């Protein structure tokens, strides 16, 4: 089966697919190629679960608790200078909201959640290009 770029199947994906992905913080923008190797979205809902003395199981979830959206993108074909710029970008923006313009041309705000993710070459690879994973919490 051949996957069509942009055909993610998510119902809330709207916009025009494009070949780049950008992260912006404080006027500094990092541009990656579109994450063709990995584009995962995880949605979780925070709940409190308790088993009562009478063995009833209660789940508490007030309506104002939004679902959490975490997206994981795997970027490949990165030039070494982009990798180095990205490491500096993480250092600058750590814990701060960054503006994301994704490969569906959507602009949203997120926080980089796993800053310790490695950037580099992970095995024999003649392309001499780097790979990394960026995990963003959608705000």
């Amino acid at each position: 089966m051949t996957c069509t770029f942009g055909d993610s199947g998510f119902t809330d994906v709207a916009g025009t697919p494009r070949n780049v992905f950008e992260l912006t913080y404080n006027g500094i923008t990092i541009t990656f190629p579109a994450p063709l190797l990995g584009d995962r979205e995880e949605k979780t809902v925070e709940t409190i679960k308790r088993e009562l003395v009478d063995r009833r199981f209660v789940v508490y979830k007030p309506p104002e608790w939004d679902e959490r959206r975490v997206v994981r993108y795997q970027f490949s074909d990165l030039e070494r200078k982009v990798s180095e710029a990205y490491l500096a970008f993480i250092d600058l923006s750590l814990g701060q909201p960054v503006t994301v313009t994704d490969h569906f041309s959507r602009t949203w705000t997120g926080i980089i959640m796993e800053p310790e993710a490695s950037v580099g070459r992970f095995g024999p690879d003649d392309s001499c290009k780097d790979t990394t994973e960026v995990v963003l919490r959608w705000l």
Partner: protein
Amino acid sequence: MVVIEAPYPGLVSRIELPAPDLGDETNIIASVNLHEMADGSVRTIIRQPRKKQHRYTFKTTEAKARELNAFLAAYSDKIMLYQGRAVYSEQESIESSPEERDFVTFSLKFRDA
């Protein structure tokens, strides 16, 4: 080719290794913990020592791996210079690859000093 020298700053020993063709990774040492407040706002707690960690994977002959073992045994508790960058050695693992008996694969992990 890459060069590791030790101990820093009074360099005494030097070892040369081939380029880390099997892996060349860097990450920053940092963490982000996100907390959601009752009013829906978000706060983050960060740990940011502004240092990097590096992991390199090499393939060399067994003799070179033994030389490296001896080098690390002598200087693993000292600051080293990896390609001019002051680092601490964090861990290393040496594996022989069954397909190529004369070669071994090993990974070195360094942390900025």
